[in-house]
């Protein structure tokens, strides 16, 4: 579903991503681990066509993101690190707007409320302004947008950053549900624990290079941390 082939990005002389090759299949939860500046966000930006690759290509469901940007965006849902919505509108109004832009169809109030509740948002919060939402609640609206979009792929950038353990756990369960329904998930994260709990594959990035990639089931929590720290200290 999400494929990177020799994906490269240079900003001037700085090589932000160096010949990345990865594949995220339907049902996979691929966790990209790495320090700040490792190239995780650049990878995401390339899949979303926010920047164009210097070399190589990114594909979504077989379509090149640069050649078919709108087609690819129809199939992807994106949840940024900080889900900032329109603060003067309610959660429901925000979802309505993004869902309609995402799908080109109109949604009933009932269906929108359903998406929000399925995302874990309390029903009594749907008509409150976003300015009164916590980070976790806004994150849930972001997931609700992904649900409403019926996206085949989900890209998340540091989704559990700033979430308390309970919210983080709820989030992980949501991801697993989506994964079980066949959505391909690519997640950039620092959270080793959550990556082991939720992920099916892990890729470790350093200085724009994917230095190691393996199945989550092949390692334990301690081993994962050890591998990660070994790469970071090189």
């Amino acid at each position: 579903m999400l494929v990177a082939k020799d994906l490269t990005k240079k900003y001037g002389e700085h090589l932000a991503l160096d010949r990345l090759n990865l594949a995220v299949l339907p049902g996979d939860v691929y966790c990209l681990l790495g320090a700040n500046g490792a190239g995780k966000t650049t990878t995401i930006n390339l899949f979303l066509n926010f920047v164009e690759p210097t070399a190589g290509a990114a594909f979504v469901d077989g379509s090149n993101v640069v050649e078919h940007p709108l087609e690819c965006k129809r199939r992807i849902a994106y949840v940024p690190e900080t889900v900032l919505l329109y603060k003067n509108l309610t959660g429901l109004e925000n979802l309505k707007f993004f869902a309609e832009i995402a799908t080109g169809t109109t949604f009933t109030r009932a269906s929108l409320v359903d998406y929000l509740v399925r995302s874990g948002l309390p029903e009594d919060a749907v008509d409150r302004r976003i300015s009164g939402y916590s980070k976790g609640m806004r994150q849930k609206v972001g997931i609700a947008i992904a649900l409403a979009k019926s996206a085949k792929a989900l890209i998340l950038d540091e989704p559990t950053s700033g979430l308390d353990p309970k919210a983080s756990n709820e989030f992980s369960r949501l991801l697993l549900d989506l994964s079980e329904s066949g959505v391909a998930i690519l997640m950039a994260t620092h959270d080793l624990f959550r990556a082991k709990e939720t992920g099916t594959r892990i890729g470790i990035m350093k200085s724009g290079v994917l230095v190691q990639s393996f199945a989550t089931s092949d390692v334990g929590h301690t081993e994962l941390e050890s591998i990660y720290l070994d790469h970071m200290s090189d």
Partner: protein
Amino acid sequence: MSRSRQILRVARHELRLSIADRRLVAGVCLLMLVTGAGIVSGTRWVNHQRATISELEKDERSRKETIRQELNATPGQTQVSKAMPIDARSPAIVGGKLGSTYATLQPKRLAVLAIGQSDLLPFHFRVSTESFRTLIDQDEIANPAHLLSGRLDLGFAVIALYPLIILAISFDMPAAEKEAGTFGLLMSQPIRFSDLILGKVLSRFMVMTCCALAISTTVIVFGASDRGDASVWKDWSLWASFLILYGAFWFALAVAANLIGKSSASNALMLSGCWLTFVLIVPAILNLIAVSAFPMPSRITLIQAARQATIDASEEGSRSLSAFYEDHPELAEGSGGDVDEFMVRSLATRSAIDEKVRPLIERFDESLEQRQRFISRARYLSPALLAQDAIESIAGTGTSRHREFLAQTKDFHQKWQNFFVPRIARKAKFETRDLEAMPQFQFEEDRFALTFRHLLGPAIGLIVQFGIVLILIGRSIRDFRVVG
């Protein structure tokens, strides 16, 4: 997924955001307030003009009636006094102050929308056998800056404030999304960036344009006495077209700045600079160039020349009279009393003065003409000047219509002279049939029909300027990056 529907979705969403944000509401309220005040001011001024003209016409009718009564009275009953002669049988008296007529310029139907400089330019002249000079304050050509110091009218609101409000609600279109953190989420959706911008502009454009048009339509519907006349609506549609075109330019400029700028603050700075440049600085510089490149004789110079000419003519005395009859031998007939002789001498003296002063007036007119031509070409550097020109032409308050009024008044003055001078020179007696045959001024609007020609220049100019900004937008959109 239809593009137009996506654009409309964005537009609806923007409207909802703008109402919640209250900035658009504030902008609309300000626009309504200023345009409302402008309409009131314009209506007052137009009513003043109409009332003044009505008073002048009443005065003229009254004097004509006095003349008629004098002419119909028996000879012994005429009132002749050396101190205050009102001998209606003297063509010099009738052609002078007693029977003088007024050349008036009635305000056009849409004049209430744009006073322009009509409050600086005279809209009535008294025409008599006295010399006619039009050395009025036309040495500074139309400058929107004048509008800032003159009467508040809808024209001022459109030319100067309307763009400011447009810029105030548009300076941070994608920048606000970036700064609010919603841009990434939005651009990850299947919508073109150009459609996003179009949707954002559309909501603002529709609201602003509808408000401005609503105001001017209300004025026509409730204010114009001849609103059933099709030509009023024709003028209104021209007004609406220029309003839309002018607004479109400023919205396009806001979009261009949003694409080039990095933050809403830098956009605001850039756009403020553009407003200052186009609305104030460029017109001021053009006026400065016009004044420097085409200097005109001052009013003081003309007054001094006229005074000197008067002294010279008085000294020349009967030589002026002889010279006059030499130039007009056909008028050297008839005999009359001392008063008639005095009147002919006076006529000859005036003619001699006019002759001496004519070169100065011709220099003035020529310089003014050169300035007008310069500004007519240079106005394409500023959309504000073009829009002002168009709006004032449609409202009938621009300098072009006034120049036509002056030209027709001059022609009429000549006609007046041609009617009275032979009678004065022949020392003929003024009669009732002469009273009925006296020339009457009627401004021929047909000679100044609001032809396509008057508005074609400003229309093309604004379209070209809009096009240039669109090209800039096209290039900038290609280079615009969601991140970095």
